[in-house]
């Protein structure tokens, strides 16, 4: 693919939550392709294109830190909001957070840095004036200037990501080789949000997502 980009992202903390451990969140060892796609989309995305992650370079050693916070247990009930909207009264439409408390831990990653290698493909929604060069150009221009549609994050919104467009791949200082087990690849929104998994192998600090994708996904 000629429309590839290399983006370096880094931050103090990250949490790419394992779906099987999401009440007390435990992060995967590395960024998931799905989170990486989210970061690229935060910088530039249009319905005409779809980002595909090819490789993930892990620049820092994998380290964890535990953070426990007071969180709220429930969501805003749409019915309650609706009835308040109808009556035009706000009374009683609120949530008492101290009566709805859940203390949850997050096993987050610490001091992470990755290089995401990705390309995009055109989708069926591409109009007549959508061409790959235009989108590539927009992405590169934005990433170079630090522009973003919304601030990208490393799994959770409080863990903000800094980013930089790269031309050359950086030399890895201490590359790790590790079998990371089954990891979430992405959520298939076309098929009623089925999660897709892949076998993540980190070889010399690089996870070859494209190769894993060729081997097929597991639902």
């Amino acid at each position, binding site marked *: 693919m000629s429309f590839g980009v290399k983006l370096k992202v880094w931050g*103090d*903390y990250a949490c790419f939550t394992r779906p099987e451990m999401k009440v007390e969140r435990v992060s995967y060892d590395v960024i998931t392709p799905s989170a990486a796609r989210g970061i690229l989309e935060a910088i530039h995305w249009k319905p005409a294109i779809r980002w595909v992650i090819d490789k993930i370079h892990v620049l820092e050693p994998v380290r964890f*830190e*535990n*953070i*426990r*916070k*007071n*969180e*709220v247990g429930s*969501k*805003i009930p*749409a*019915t309650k*909001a*609706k*009835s*308040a*909207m*109808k*009556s035009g*009264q*706000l*009374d*009683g*439409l*609120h*949530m*008492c*957070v*101290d*009566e709805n408390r859940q*203390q949850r*831990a997050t096993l987050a990653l*610490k001091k992470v840095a990755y290089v995401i290698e990705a390309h995009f493909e055109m989708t069926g929604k591409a109009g007549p004036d959508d061409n790959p060069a235009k989108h590539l150009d927009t992405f590169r221009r*934005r990433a170079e*200037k*630090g*522009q*973003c*549609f*919304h*601030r990208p*994050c490393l799994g959770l*919104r*409080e*863990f*903000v990501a*800094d*980013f*930089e467009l790269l031309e050359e791949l950086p030399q890895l200082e201490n590359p790790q080789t590790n079998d990371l087990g089954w990891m979430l690849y992405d959520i298939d929104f076309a098929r009623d949000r089925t999660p897709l998994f892949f076998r993540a192998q980190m070889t010399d600090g690089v996870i070859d997502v494209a190769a894993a994708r060729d081997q097929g996904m597991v639902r």
Partner: protein
Amino acid sequence: MPSLQNRYDFVLFFDVSNGNPNGDPDAGNLPRMDPETNQGLTSDVSLKRKIRNYVAMAHEGEQGHEIYMTERAVLNEQHARAYEAANLKSESKKLPKKEAEARALTRWMCDNFFDIRTFGAVMTTEVNCGQVRGPVQISFGRSEEAVLPLEISITRSSVTNEKDRDKERTMGRKHILPYGLYRVHGFINPKLAEKTGFSEADLETLWTALRDMFDFDRSAARGEMASRRLIAFKHDSALGNAQAHKLFERVTVSRVDGDELRPVGDPRTHNLPPARSFADYHINLDDLGLPDGISIVEPF
């Protein structure tokens, strides 16, 4: 009112004297710390709580400034329940089916609640647009230098339980930091502001809240906390004109040593006495040669 048009990246400095800015539930309410560097931490949500409390108090009863995530029950709730009962027949528990309906609902919630408009909220599960991301994103706070948590034992000259009557007094513990200067990074995103209707006036409210929130959050545990300085980088455009981390690098903190300034972390700060007041620090803002389209706003 039109929504915010510019991107902002801001740095907030606040300090604490003889208090605990944010207890860690995992560590018996000790101040949160980074175990590797001993820097103090504060969670994003602790600051958001204070912003909510401030806005709830300062804008009480004002249209569009309700707070959804409140800390205490509101007396009107019973009243509202009656209202709801009178007005509505058996409402199905189903989520809104139509997208337009869900959109209207979200819109209305954004219009009425400051915290939903600012920080976003998850309203429903099934309908995607029932979830709003707010324009304001706050990261973890981190102290400039390592902090020293102290455990202070206190006594109470009365007892709670009958069986302790003979003891006459009980002991308690408080955790305090003698001093800590914290730095927080925040981001305001006009593209998301567009979706929630976060306006210029809301931005002013946010700046004021960041300035005054600690003044109305006094408690036995907090000690003395105060916002010290807020530096906001205003981008000319909605998408921004420079990389946020490069802007943040322009804001540096030094220790004051007599007439000299030594950058935090410099080996020459190692034998300085520990910082115990804001006067021991100097915040420097490099505003020379700012990238095109960036201006600095200092609300305080």
